[in-house]
């Protein structure tokens, strides 16, 4: 089944400690991977080779860092994978649009709303806001927000 092949491929790319199985019923994804930014390209290539599609890329803003969360999903049951990547403020991530064309827009949206740059993305410009906008709305320091947390307060264990 394509999902198990993906699990094997993943072991080659990321050290197994970073892969945690999680209960699909509660969390909604059955694999939780904490990756470094340079492993993203290889993870995407592994997912692409084992017939998974890119479901979503979402940014989350914490006090100490950004987190970019990738969701890959297969056509089988319970095959959603969450890949969380820690990005310090001002850093950028390698693009995966060469592997998934969907990433072209997902990454542009994360850049537009968070300001996280994706290097050698062919056409990194704003997706939703007008071209002359000069702010990144989903950052916690912009506009009205209930609270700003650090990663420990939410995930409890400091991510690698």
């Amino acid at each position, binding site marked *: 089944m394509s999902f198990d092949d993906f699990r094997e491929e993943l072991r080659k790319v990321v050290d197994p400690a970073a892969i945690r199985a999680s209960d699909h019923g509660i969390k909604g994804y059955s694999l939780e991977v904490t990756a470094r930014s340079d492993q993203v390209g290889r993870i995407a290539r592994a997912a692409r080779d084992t017939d998974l599609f890119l479901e979503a890329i979402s940014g989350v803003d914490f006090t100490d860092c950004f987190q970019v969360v990738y969701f890959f999903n297969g056509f089988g049951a319970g095959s959603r994978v969450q890949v969380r990547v820690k990005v310090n403020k001002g850093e950028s991530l390698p693009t995966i649009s060469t592997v998934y064309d969907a990433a072209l827009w997902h990454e542009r949206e994360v850049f537009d709303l968070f300001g996280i740059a994706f290097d050698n993305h062919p056409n990194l410009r704003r997706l939703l*806001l*007008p071209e002359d906008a000069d*702010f990144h*709305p989903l950052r916690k320091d*912009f*506009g*009205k*927000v209930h609270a700003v947390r650090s990663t420990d307060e939410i995930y409890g264990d400091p991510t690698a």
Partner: protein
Amino acid sequence: MAEKKLTYAPLVHVAALEHMLNLFRANSLWPMTFGLACCAIEMMAAGASRFDLDRFGAGVFRPSPRQSDLMIVAGTISKKMAPTIVTLWEQMPAPKWCVAMGNCAISGGPFEYDGQYAIVPGADLIVPVDVYIPGCPPRPEGLIQGLLLLQDMITKGEKRNVFRRFQRRAEKGR
């Protein structure tokens, strides 16, 4: 409030002629197909089989502003869309009217809060609006009542609108 309609009065101004023209303009309003969001679906429902705007002469939805004399701003006006709305309004020939349909077009509606960065809270900030139709989305009957009100405004009085199909119940008794 955007500057008033910015349309020049006609050169020849004869009251009877003006009234006759207004009578025809009121009963054949050509709205521009211009749906922004949810209210556009109710506008389509109003134009469809059950509520049928054609009964009031307003069913001819023209795609281009050059051929329409009524702009129904139906939906949320995002800041990226605002200059386009002004362009479309200016490209419409006189005489032209504007109806703000739905809470978003009246005052930003459910999306207006002090941290809002993406919408223009109200169509009257960018175009002069004649009739406001509240509702989120307003029911097709609401849109029809708004259009009837606009027709009365154009003919300056319900009694003068001889083609009016629906008399208010109070008048009918007299």
